[in-house]
């Protein structure tokens, strides 16, 4: 059974909702059942935000992910909140650029990636979500990255095609980081 429950969390504005949508669309393109649910903290902007993505070859039961098999945390508060929720054997991608502490669990695969720093290297903080997503897909190839890029055009509009190369690069840089992952 193909079934991934993914949670992507961070500050609002870090693109965590978009990253999740891209995953869901990509899964949809690949013929899977998918769902995506956003969640926001009480803050109006810059507060916490996260999204649940489920990709499965069967009808999806619960669209809200509370115990992710795959998880990306883009900042320290999210790491603190969600590290313990990851299913044993699951994958946790940590944006080390914005996390002072490290993940401590040993029963999961932890992928450390300096997503924000890498993104800045690539020209803009905005790519951090794609770097982290790349890292996730490096550790667990849930969908093909070309599908993620195709999804980008769908979500953001065809006129954003010029950003594809940079995003592809960001995804790749993330995937590389996954190679050095700490396996459970």
């Amino acid at each position, binding site marked *: 059974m193909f079934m991934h429950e993914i949670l992507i969390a961070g*500050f609002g504005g870090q693109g965590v909702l978009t990253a999740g949508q891209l995953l869901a669309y990509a899964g949809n393109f690949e013929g899977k059942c998918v769902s995506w649910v956003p969640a926001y903290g009480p803050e109006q902007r*810059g507060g916490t935000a996260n999204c649940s993505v489920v990709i499965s070859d069967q009808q999806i039961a619960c669209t809200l992910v509370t115990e992710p098999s795959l998880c990306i945390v883009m*900042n*320290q508060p999210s790491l603190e909140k969600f590290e313990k929720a990851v299913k044993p054997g699951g994958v946790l991608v940590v944006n080390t650029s*914005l996390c002072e502490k490290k993940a401590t669990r040993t029963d999961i695969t932890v992928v450390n990636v300096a997503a924000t720093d890498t993104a800045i290297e690539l020209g803009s903080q905005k790519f951090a979500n794609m770097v982290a997503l790349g890292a996730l897909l490096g550790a667990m190839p849930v969908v093909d990255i070309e599908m993620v890029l195709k999804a980008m055009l769908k979500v953001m509009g065809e006129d954003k095609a010029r950003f594809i190369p940079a995003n592809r690069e960001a995804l790749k840089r993330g995937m590389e980081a996954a190679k050095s992952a700490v396996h459970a």
Partner: protein
Amino acid sequence: MRAKLELQENHCKGCELCVQACPRDVLAMGSNINALGYRPASIVDPEKCTGCKACALVCPEVCFTIWQVA
């Protein structure tokens, strides 16, 4: 008039309004990120401060405390 200025960086949301309001370039945006996830303002040239309170008036997070030094 000389003034003593304190800026509570951990409450700052990096809106830049204080920096824009300060007539004496006492303030600038920092490059660090605080616990709230923002790049806070910081005091870069405290000596220049006249205590005009423009920064304190515009700051939505009441980050500034200013003393008039007699």
